[in-house]
Every structure is written in C-alpha cells, then in structure tokens.
C-alpha cells in the first residue's frame, strides 16, 4: 500500500497538486496547493485553450510547492493520482501526460481518477470516519447529479441535470445581472440583501430526481429585460434565482433520501460552497439524514480529493498503464444500473 500519494488536478481552470501521507484507509492531507486561473474572468467563463496553456506553465511549480509544503521529497512519493476526466480535454491532457511521465521516471504507479469520484471522497479527508452508505448531491459548474453510494467504489445514479448544471446556471445568471465570474459567490453575496419576490419556476420539482435549470435561467432573462430599474431589482433577482435553485436541489435530495432510506447525505462540488444551500439542506433533512459538507477549499476543484480517491483505488491494487489518456466524457467507474431510473447511467461533462 502506498504511503505517500501525490494528487494532480487540471480538469478545468484550477491547477492543483496535493500530498497525502499515511497508511491503511486513513491518509492525512499533508499539503494542498490550488492555483486559480484569473485570466478567464474577463470572458465571463472558462476559455479552454487559455486554460490548457496556463496549466502547462503552472503545473510543475504547483507540484513543487505541494511537495515542499508537505516536507516530502519527490523520491519519497509512492504513487501519483491524476484526474483523467471528465473535463476540458486540453486541460486534462496536460495533467495526465505530466503525471504519467513523472511516475514513469520515478518507477512508481500512476492511477487515473474520475473527477466526480474525487468530489465524493472530499468530505472523507476531514471526516475519516465517514463511510457509505449515503446519498451524494454533487453540484458544480459542470455537473449536477444525485448518487446512491452503498459502498466506496459502488455508485447508483438517481438523477442528473438534463441541461445546464446548477453552477453553470449561477454563472450565466451572474452574467445576466452584470456580476463577475465565477457567479456563485457573487449571487450569494448579493442575495443576502434581496428578497424572493419574483416567484421563479422550480423546474421538475415534483418529477423524479432529474434536474433542469435552463428554463429557470430563461425566466431570469425575461425578468431582467422587463425590469425598469435593474440596480433596484438586482438583489431581489439574485435572491429569487438562488431560492429557486436551492428549493429544487433540497427537494430532489429529500426525495432521494426517502427512496433509498439512507441516513447520511454528502454535499459536494463547487456549489456546495454556497452556505445558504448547505444550511437549508441540513435544516430540511434534520431528523432524517445527517448532511456532511467539506470546507470550501475541498469542494472546489482540488487535487486533495483526487489523491484521496486515488488512494482508495491504489489500496485495492488498481493501476493505470502508460496508455492512460484523458477523456472529456469519462463515465463514472463503479456505476451500477438502477432498474427504476429512466436516465442514462453516464453523462458528459
């Protein structure tokens, strides 16, 4: 079993490296470095080619920094875990090629990790006692899905978005409201001074565990166009939009808990940094299920969660070989068919 695992994450616009140290199934986080690319802010969204170029410039210095902060020399690393997908293909390729070559030259194993499985493992970094079974709500700029997790490495898809991811909707609505990128923190901050008076739709609220946010986004667009004083309405628009998204996420999660009978819920992904969502979910499920949310730094795209998921697979003796390649649309490993589900079991990023 590996005792030191280096994690690498380059799936979108964060260049990240982390070091896990320990043995058995309770590794400790020795360091985590996340470099967020600022260059995309002027575009209001991630530009894949610019992200790929920035990763190539930043990755090795970020890895060096993570090793230094952990006090671990490179030759003490026992294995490397790297995000192999899903994500931006050009960005993923930088991390995968670097990780493969480094592992090869060090004569140590490399393991490709699914980005979403990393998000699933993120809370386990802070809560080593955390064990399945649980329901997981993963919400980010690229994903919105509900999973039933009977055991680590075994996943059953309960529902997913049919169009925009929740985080994507936050970013697009932020742009409509003339706010900065990324939109989630901006909308949450603005919503604090607004009221939910626009009565935006709660798409698919009473139908299964799938999500849809594109209609909600369009409703905000119409409200913005109809506003005769956008400066006055902006906080209320932000509050109304956020309430609609949270209502949907909370109700769907409650339905997933009810249908599975699980007593534990994991909230993960970048949107899990939204404190209002975390509080509402915990309050709604109080007495039914315990909600675990990692701290914001571990909910953003980061290499610690990749190292932790990689640790799990390495412990099971799994390895990737030299032909490991990045995949923009990698299916979640370990997914089990759900006879009751009407949705496909894999999805694109």
């Amino acid at each position: 079993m590996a005792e030191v695992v280096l994690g690498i994450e380059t799936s979108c616009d964060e260049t990240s490296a982390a070091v896990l140290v320990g043995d058995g199934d309770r590794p400790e986080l020795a360091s985590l470095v996340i470099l967020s690319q600022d260059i995309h802010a002027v575009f209001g969204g991630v530009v894949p080619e610019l992200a790929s170029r920035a990763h190539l410039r930043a990755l090795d210095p970020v890895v060096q920094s993570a090793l230094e902060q952990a006090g671990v020399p490179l030759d003490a690393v026992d294995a490397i875990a790297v995000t192999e997908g899903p994500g931006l293909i050009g960005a993923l390729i930088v991390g995968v090629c670097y990780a493969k070559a480094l592992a090869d030259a060090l004569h140590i194993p490399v393991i490709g990790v699914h980005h979403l499985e990393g998000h699933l493992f993120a809370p386990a970094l802070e809560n080593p006692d955390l064990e399945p079974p649980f329901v997981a709500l993963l919400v980010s700029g690229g994903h919105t899905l509900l999973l039933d997790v009977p055991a680590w490495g075994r996943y059953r898809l309960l529902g997913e978005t049919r169009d925009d991811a929740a985080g994507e909707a936050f970013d697009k609505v932020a742009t409509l409201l003339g706010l900065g990128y990324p939109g989630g923190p901006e909308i949450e901050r603005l919503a604090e001074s607004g009221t939910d008076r626009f009565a935006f739709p709660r798409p698919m609220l009473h139908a299964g565990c799938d999500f849809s946010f594109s209609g909600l986004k369009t409703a905000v667009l119409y409200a913005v166009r109809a506003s005769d004083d956008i400066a006055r309405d902006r906080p209320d628009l932000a509050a109304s939009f956020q309430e609609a998204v949270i209502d949907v996420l909370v109700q769907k999660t409650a339905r997933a808990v009810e249908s599975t009978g699980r007593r534990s819920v994991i909230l993960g992904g970048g949107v899990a940094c939204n404190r209002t969502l975390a509080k509402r979910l915990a309050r709604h499920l109080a007495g039914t299920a315990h909600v675990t949310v990692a701290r914001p730094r571990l909910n953003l795209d980061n290499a610690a969660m990749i190292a932790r998921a990689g640790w799990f697979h390495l412990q099971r003796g799994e390895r990737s070989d030299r032909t490991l390649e990045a995949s923009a649309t990698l299916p979640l490993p370990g997914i089990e068919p759900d006879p009751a589900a009407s949705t496909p079991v894999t999805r694109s990023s």
Partner: protein
Amino acid sequence: MTLTLALDTATEIGSVAVGDGHLVLAEMSFGGRRHAAALLPAVHDVLDVVGATLDDLTTVVVADGPGSFTGLRIGWATVQGLVRARDSIRVATAPSLLGAAWVGSQFSSGPVAALYDALRGEVYGAVYQLDADRLEVVLRPTLGTVADLVEQSPVRPVLAVGDGAGVNRSAIEAWTGRAPLLPPVGSARAGALLALADLEGALRDIPDPTSCEPDYGRAAEAQVRWERQHGRPLPGSTGHAR
C-alpha cells in the same frame, strides 16, 4: 554513449527517436490522434530497441511549434514530467518545421519550405537552407497565407514539405516549380531533430524546462477577439492561490 531522446508531437504524425549524438539508433511514429496514449509507450519501445531505459538519458529534444496546440502540449508536458524526476537531463528544442525541412533536404539540394496547415486558409511556414554542416534560417516560422510566405521569403525554395503544402498544392507548385513532398514522407520526424543536433543554431537549450511552454505560433482565438475588441493586450495573470 550520450543517449538522446527526441519527441515530435506537433502534427498528426507523432514520432519518437533515440540516438547517440546525431546518430539515430531507433525511431517510431504513431498517428490516429492518440498522441497522449501513444507517446510514452513509444518512448519505451525505442529505448528497448537500444537496450536502454529512461535512466540512461542525458538529453531530451522536444519539437517546438508552431503546430497543433494540443499536440505540442502532449510533448512538452511529458518532458516536464520526465525532467522533474531527472533534473540532470539537458532539454533542448527546435521547431518541428525545421525537422520537416530536414526531411525535405534529404530529397533535394537548396532551400526547403516547410508548411503546416494552420486552418482558416493559413499555414505555419518557414524556409531553411540545410547543408551537411550548415543551417541557414531563410525565413523564421511564421503564420500567414502561402502568398504571405512567398512575399516574405527572400529566396524561392526548391521543394516544399508538410500538410500545409498539400492543402495549397497549386500555389506551392507555382512557387517551387514542383510538386510538394507530402506526409507521411514529407512530414516532421523526431529522428530529424537528432540529425540536426550537430548543426550550429539548430537546437535551443531550455534552461528551465519545467515551467516553459512551446511557441504555439498563434494566440488563442478568444484572446485575439478580446484584444481586437479592446485595442490592448489581454491582461496577463499567473492566477491566485487558494
């Protein structure tokens, strides 16, 4: 023996070679737009041929752009990973176009134009005069139409190579007076980078390969549009730590 590994992933045909100085000992190519999967196994294949391992390498030569953005990053990220573990390895680079021109020089005497298709009606092009013991850069790698190259080149090449010559065949034939040498023969080869090793000015050392990047030959399209719209360079940023 000073074992050198060369990588060229700048075009659709990727290749690796291992050699002693400028002597190519083993070489192999791969295609199918799966360079990221094929590159590292190919490195081991050529090392196996000469009974060597990564531990035996003293120098790595990686092809520079212009060329495929993703292809270039596959090569450069791989080199970054290798030299992080083996910091005694010397890293050098040369334009992939120069390697393609060297291939052309094996078929003809005189200046050779190397052209890669840059899409949107443009090519990445350069013109070199390659003799047995001398390299002259007639026209440095540039982006433009074939007409731009014809105008900028002070000499008329005797041969053109590369896929950019193929998509502009009639203009190339009018320029050089003969049919271009097309891929797979008329393309860059990692072995060419090794063959060029002794020519003064062919290779450029990279003192700090772990945070460098290739010459892409063209800015990202979003950056071009932004700068056109705002009339100033895109603000540079190294990002912020979280």
